[in-house]
Structure formats: C-alpha cells, structure tokens
C-alpha cells in the first residue's frame, strides 16, 4: 500500500501537525512501509473474535459524587503560555 502526499496532508491536518513538502514525502514513504508491514493482520483468522479493548475483563469503578478538588488555578496557570484575568488566551475563535 502506498500513501500519497495528499493523503498525508489530510491526516496531518486532522492531527494538527504542520508539514512541509519534504516532510510530507518522508511521511508518505515511512507510513507506506509501516502499513505494508501491518498488512500481516489480514492473514489472521478473526472470524467471530470479539475485539479486545482492554487487557483485563473488568467493570468501571464509580466514585462518590463529592467535591474533592480544591481551586488550584494559580498553580495551574503558572505554567500556561498565555493567560489574562484567569482565562487562557488563544487567537480569536470565530463561531
């Protein structure tokens, strides 16, 4: 299987990764190799096999509905790249 640069660009856009032309070609080649390798899965006999999302067959544990987290805004915003008046700043979003 071989990926085109256009497909690579579509995926990069979905993943929000800027890629230039040279990188797009590099990704196209590398990803194509990896998908060729992964094609081995096509040989598996998976008829009637249930997908396994988790290593352990367990149920979700529930926590009581209680407030346990204190306000730590100052601590958390101390590592933020851009904040003002308690909000995080991003370039203007148009809805």
């Amino acid at each position: 299987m071989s990926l085109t640069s256009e497909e690579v660009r579509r995926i990069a856009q979905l993943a929000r990764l800027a890629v230039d032309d040279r990188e797009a070609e590099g990704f196209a080649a590398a990803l194509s190799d990896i998908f060729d390798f992964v094609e081995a899965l096509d040989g598996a006999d998976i008829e009637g096999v249930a997908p396994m999302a988790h290593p352990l067959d367990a149920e979700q544990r529930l926590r009581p509905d209680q407030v346990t987290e204190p306000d730590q805004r100052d601590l958390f915003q101390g590592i933020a790249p851009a904040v003002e008046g308690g909000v995080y700043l991003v370039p203007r979003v148009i809805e």
Partner: protein
Amino acid sequence: MTLDTLTGWARRLQAREISSRELTELYLGRIERLDSGINSFVTVTRDEALAAADAADQRLAKGERAPLLGLPVAQKDIFCTRGVRTSCGSRMLDSFVAPYDASVVERMNAAGAVMLGKTNMDEFAMGSSNETSHYGPVRNPWDPERVPGGSSGGSAAAVAARLAPAATGTDTGGSIRQPAAFCGVTGLKPTYGRVSRYGMIAFASSLDQGGPMAASAEDCALMLNAMAGFDPRDSTSLQRPDEDFTAGLDRDLKGLRIGLPREYFGDGLHPEVRRAVQDALAVLRERGAEPVEISLPNSGLSVPAYYVVAPAECSSNLARYDGVRYGHRCSDPRDLMDLYTRSRAEGFGAEVKRRIMIGTYVLSAGYYDAYYLKAQKVRRLIAEDFRRAFGEVDVIAGPTSPELPFRLGEKSADPVSMYLSDIYTIAANLAGLPGLSMPAGTVGSLPVGLQLIGNYFDEARLLNVAHQFQQETGWHQRMPAAFA
C-alpha cells in the same frame, strides 16, 4: 566505598553503617562524574535529594521502617514530579513543571525514597533505542557507540552504570525489558493495572505499565512493594490486597514448568543470543525447572497489531498538547490553526509525529474496521494463546530481544526494523501479562537478556525464578569497567 545493591544498601542504612545523606552524596557524585558519557539523566535534583536524605536520616534515627527509607532512586522523566520539570523527553514539555506527583512518585516518596533526578527516555516513550529524546541519545554503558535500548534507556543505563541503585521505568511494548536486556540489568513490567498510571504521562493507555529496574530481582521486588497498589484515581487500577513481593524469592524451582515458545526461537534470533539464552535455561533446569515446548501461534502478529493499537491511542493521548494550557507554544501564531499546527510540529520530534500520523490514519473514517478493529481482534487471539499456554506451564521463557544492542543510528532510517526489536516483548503488553528481563549472559562484552512472562498477577513467581537464577549466576553483578 564498594557499591552495593538496593537491598544491600537498605540493610546498611538500617544498621546505621551509612547515612542516607552519605549514600545520596555518593550517587550524586557518581552522576556528576560519570553521566556525561552516557547522558542517562535529564534533570538531577541535588538539593531536593539531599533534603529528602536528611529527612530520611531523621526517620531512620527514630527507628522508623519503610520499604525504601533513605534509598536513592531515579525516576523516569515520564512520571510527573511536583515542582520538578517533567519533560517526557520532549521539547513539547521542556518547560513543563508538573503541578502534582504521579501516584508512583507519591507512593515511593511515602516509602522514604530519595529521588536523585529524572532519567532520559525516548520522546513520549516512543522508541526502542533512546535516540528520539529531545535531550540527545543515551549511550550504552557497555559500549558508548551502542544504544541502551528504549524507551526506558536512561533508567537502564543509569542502573547499569551504578549511577542509581534502582530506577523506575514504563513499558508499553517492551520499554522496561528491552533496555534492561541491552544494559544488563533486571527489569519488571507488572500485570496491567498493578501499578497506577495516574500522573504517568500516557503513550498508549491500554498498554502502558510502570515498573522497577534494578541490578537484581531482589531489588526489583523491593521497589515493586513500594510502587504497586490500588489507586482510586486510576479506573484501570486493580483492587487487590497488597502483596510482599520479596516474600517468595527463596522458593526453589523444583517442578516449575517453563514454557519455551517455539516462535521465540525462530529465524530472526541472533545465534549468539540464542546460545546465551539456552545456557541460561540450562541453569534453571539444573535447579529443578522442567522445560516444556509450547506454541504461541499468533506471536508473529503481535508487532503489526501493536503498531495499530499503540499509535491509535497515542494520536488521541497526545492531542492535549496544543500550546494552550501548558507546554510548547509557537511564537506569534497567525490564527488558531497556526497555533495548533506549528506548536505541535515544533514541539514533537519525528518519531512521535510518525506515530500520531499512523494513529490518526487507522482511526479515520473508512479505515477503522480495516485497521483498528482488526488489530483489537488479533489482540484477543494473542491473549488467548497465552491463556492456553498457562494451562500447561507456570512461566514462559525466551530471549528478551532478538539481537544485541545495536549501534547508534543503525536503525534510525528504518522504522520497521526498529519496531521488530520488540518482537518478543510486545505480546505481554497486548495481553496485559507481567514480564521480566534479567541478565543471562554476554556476547563479547554485551549483555543478553532472558525474558520471563508470567500469568496475570504472578509477578512474585517471576521474581522468584529470577532470584533463584541470580543465586546461581553472577551476570547481574557485572559492571561496565568504565563505571566500576
């Protein structure tokens, strides 16, 4: 002063033959003198370590007991450490000072451990050579031209060079066991859910598991006692009574059935590695273990399945690094899209981007069934192979890696050949089983690792087998000459 093991130091601390401060200074001094050659630490927390050592000395003076009281250890830089930069080997988190401790760190601190610093690693734990770190590659203490393995390469190298008596690692596809094998140390990946993942930066959540790395199985047992345990903050944490993993180390191996999967001794295995592994198995046989040939027929599919499942989870787990709330943000973004795409392109290295791309692709519309769903089904086949095998045997043994530590740069251009370095370790992650690697011999001066895979929750047995082996052999005591 002669270097001791973690267990040995614990004894000497309790006997007041040495203080935690002296011990901590000893290791800090070694890091200072010797780490420049191998680059195993990204951050050394000298002041914090000495303060913790002093606190431990006070507790020791009062006669307190705690599993790791006063013992210096290194933390892989994937575990969040409050007030200390937690980079995960990435430019993305170069400025990230964690506002909280990972549960593992919290538990170890409570057990009295003294953190020496944070160890180097493949970026976001994605790599098998430690060459993808933003902070430069780690070198193998046995041969600085060779890789230490990855992704816990910094921890493995630091323990091998005796810059720390023990360190934490994480293992998503072999990231504890393969570097342990390459560096000649003992490393254990516990059963999925045994060690909390809270505060351990996620790569592939259904596969990631933290575990100990140390010189010996005995030391790993001591570490695991502090690391393992139920954590209400992790939904996948197991609710099981606490276990003392050091308790069963001395059991003999009489009648132990060791499964040898024929698929683990096939064509891809380096002949010298095969020889070393077979010699090691002979030692176990002499101590009463019975080898049983078994088959894990779907072994060959584990790496392909892994390279769908792990990137899929990673592509989603790493979406939070967007330059908004923490981490790298590009300068002067034109608009929101520019902020996202440039911050992420600048913050992540090539291998991380490659895996994000693979994962995004396999989950995208039209490909989900062909890749992701199929891989999840194959995952069950692999787990079933093990379930059947553990009906016949107590542990499974084989090589940890098909090859010897390779040269820096040797596989950088060929991701697939790099991925195949984990061919024997990945299956245990897919199934969620515990696995251990221990030094089993050498080829030239280079270490060879023997892997043991156990049934669910059977860490104690793996440690027991490894400990018994280490009673008979001295491979785990070898030290690279330059660091003696």
